[in-house]
């Protein structure tokens, strides 16, 4: 198993005081972060607790290659994406995902700050009007109908501009996709 030449920060998570401090420091922020994916406060609280329990159970010494915070956010994001995926897949592929749902392996976490920067850069590549429409929907939660009214556009235009924005983002963020792919293949359909 190869290890990149990062400096490892070694934290003894099984030291009660360390564990408690980590939890109390990041819990609220992590719940809000998870909630952006799940849009369900109770489930998000549950999810973050599960992530902490998992970390507690899995390892006594946690080797972390970035900041602890980055690690925790990455872990919550992975868990949230998996939960969303499993909820949908469960019915159809119940047998096949059996082993995956039981104890998912720890996966590589995402450099969250890096992702944020890449997304920001990608957003800057979208033409102004198009970006405005996208942000009104995705960031401010406005319905297509309301956006069309506000900007005096047809509904069809809003639909098309949303598609255009998503396409540009996808193209610009190509580099980040392998990480998602890794995540999916590790938790994916194979046993």
């Amino acid at each position, binding site marked *: *198993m190869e290890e990149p030449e990062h400096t490892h920060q070694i934290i003894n998570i099984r030291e009660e005081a360390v564990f408690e401090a980590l*939890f109390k420091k990041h*819990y609220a922020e992590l719940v809000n972060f998870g909630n*952006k994916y799940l849009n369900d406060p109770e489930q998000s609280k549950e999810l973050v607790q599960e992530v902490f329990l998992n970390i507690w159970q899995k*390892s006594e010494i946690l080797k972390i290659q970035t900041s602890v915070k980055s690690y925790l956010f990455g872990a919550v994001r992975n868990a949230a994406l998996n939960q969303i995926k499993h909820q949908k897949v469960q019915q159809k592929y119940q047998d096949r995902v059996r082993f995956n749902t039981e104890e998912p*392996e720890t996966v590589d976490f995402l450099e969250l700050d890096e*992702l944020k920067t890449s997304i920001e850069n990608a957003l800057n590549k979208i033409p102004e009007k198009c970006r405005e429409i996208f942000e009104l929907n995705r960031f401010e939660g406005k319905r297509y109908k309301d956006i069309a009214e506000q900007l005096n556009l047809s509904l069809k235009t809003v639909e*098309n501009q*949303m598609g255009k924005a998503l396409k540009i983002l996808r193209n610009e963020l190509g580099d980040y996709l392998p990480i998602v792919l890794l995540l*999916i293949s590790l938790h994916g359909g194979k046993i």
Partner: protein
Amino acid sequence: MNKLPEHITEALLAKYFAGEISEEEKLIVDQWKAHSEEAQITYYQWEALWLDLGNFGESPKPVEVNVEKSWEELLTKRENQIPQISSPFGSWMKIAASIAVVFGLFAIIYQLNKPADLILAQTESSISKIVLADGSTVTLNKYSTLEYPEEFLSENRPVNMSGEAFFDITPDLKKPFEIKVGEGLITVLGTSFNIKSSRNTDTISVYVQTGKVRFDFANQELVLTAGEKGVLITKAELLQKEQPEPSGLDQFWRTRSLTFSGQKIPYIIKSLQSAYGNPIILDSDAIKACSLTAKFENEELEEILEVLSITLNLVVEKKSGSYILTGEGCTDQ
């Protein structure tokens, strides 16, 4: 990078994720992603992108969090999980244990909190064999746990398990061997059998290879003898006998062997699918009537499919992780 098919536009996906999609359009997307594993992966990539992008906006409403209360909840959950670990050994043992976990190997964690020294064995991605103090052996499947005392000091031999395991118990008429699994209790004197508990289907099943086993749940009791299988559906509080798989599928995880004695193709396909986890699709009704008698031991799926294609005159095609079988049918059978 997986490309989208022509009829799935980015605008359509955006509508889908944003919840602005019509019923008919939704059907188009659903059908596309259900079509193949490849499409499904592509879909999840787009969905993950959409969700990640949501991080930049304002949360609909900040979630109110009571950190102290949540911490207490977490502590309770932790207590109720797999028992606490406290190593009597130096830190090298801790490091060894964490390395074993990291590498997906077998980790034994010692626990000294209880009167009898309990050992917790937990497997990750590989199968492990454990020898107990009385000489009994337990083969523990992947992602399963077994908790057992270092020595059997009481009047019985109690252990706890979850997941799946095969037990070969050394006979001792004076000390029954007791396995607690979920809400079920399995009692034996000396025998070999398989236990599987599944959280997904909420069942516990016991398959007896030799000897006799008693399966208790609440105030129900089931006595199983060699070749019999008992299943507990916990939520339905139903404990009953079931036909074991004639192909030996129940034991496949351990024996890597499947035996078919004249079963029809649909059953054979179903068994191979659960044993190997790859989807196999039957693309011709004509071959459903074909049957097979064969024993496969330690064979790869592709080798088995090759045998099938030769004996039953089938064409096997591999397409993104699935196998598709076609053929003319079996007239000579």
